[in-house]
């Protein structure tokens, strides 16, 4: 494992912890997006660009979007 990989893995772990510890739901949508983007960086560092491309949109855009809209629906009720 080269230092860059170790650093990105540590960042992903830190972001995962932040996702778990976040209680405010709107922040959760943002933090989970940051976590997803860090995961994308990890895939790139591990030389898996195909996976990185799909993760970029799915965990960086799709998941936070679904969380954000679910919160908006709940607030509108």
């Amino acid at each position, binding site marked *: *494992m080269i230092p860059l990989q170790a650093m990105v893995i540590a960042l992903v772990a830190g972001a995962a912890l932040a996702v778990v510890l976040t209680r405010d739901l709107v922040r959760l949508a943002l933090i989970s997006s940051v976590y997803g983007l860090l995961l994308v960086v990890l895939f790139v560092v591990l030389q898996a660009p*195909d996976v990185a*491309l799909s993760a970029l*949109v799915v965990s960086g*855009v799709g998941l936070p*979007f679904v969380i954000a*809209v679910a919160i908006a629906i709940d607030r*509108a*009720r």
Partner: protein
Amino acid sequence: MSRGFRLGLFAASAVGLAALLLWGVAGLPDFGHYAGPYGYVLNAVAPNERHVTNVVTATVFDYRGFDTLGEEFILFSAAMGVALLLRDVRDEEREPPEDGIRSDAVRLVGVALVPVLVALGLYVVAHGFITPGGGFQGGVVLASAFLVVWLAGEYRAFRRLTPTPAVDLVKGSGAGGYVVVGLAALLLGNAFLHNFGPLGTAGTLASGGSALLLNLASALEVAAAFVLIFTEFGEELVNVRLRGGG
């Protein structure tokens, strides 16, 4: 249950889980040391056998095309499930209220971003057998282009671009088209989903044989499935807002 008992139960199960995890991780191959022969074999033979330069896409749509068929239908059923659940409880489709983004800066960024995303999505789909990417990756990028129309513009513009019958049609023909290409291989006397097309020249857009069609079919399916999920959530939001006045 008393607090002490619960803490004890947690400690015991946490130690057990940690031990199992450590045991499992200790048995993994070392970091970066892949033990299976399959990847090395494909890396060695795929470029000559299938005239491709991106072995990942060749694996996904050609050597393991049948697995991808399953994944295709996982996404298909997931999006269908969302649609069935939400459409059932929704009232008549109503004209969504105006919710346009008022900030000129955000709108400008959106206007600039959408064509770039569409071009990038099409590029990633088309170059699937040449560079990293392919139907799934390009499909999600295309779907996110539509999402930007909503997020940086307005929901009504997004809905006008993605009429539900059209999205359903694209989604269905993407999933169905994948099966049709597989059946075409059967009709030509090969195994289901066997690559039958002219393989073309490696490194050009027309490489990959009939797996190129599978790539396109999955791009349609994935883009439409994501747009459908965005739409169903959006319609639900509009409906709740109209009803609750929130």
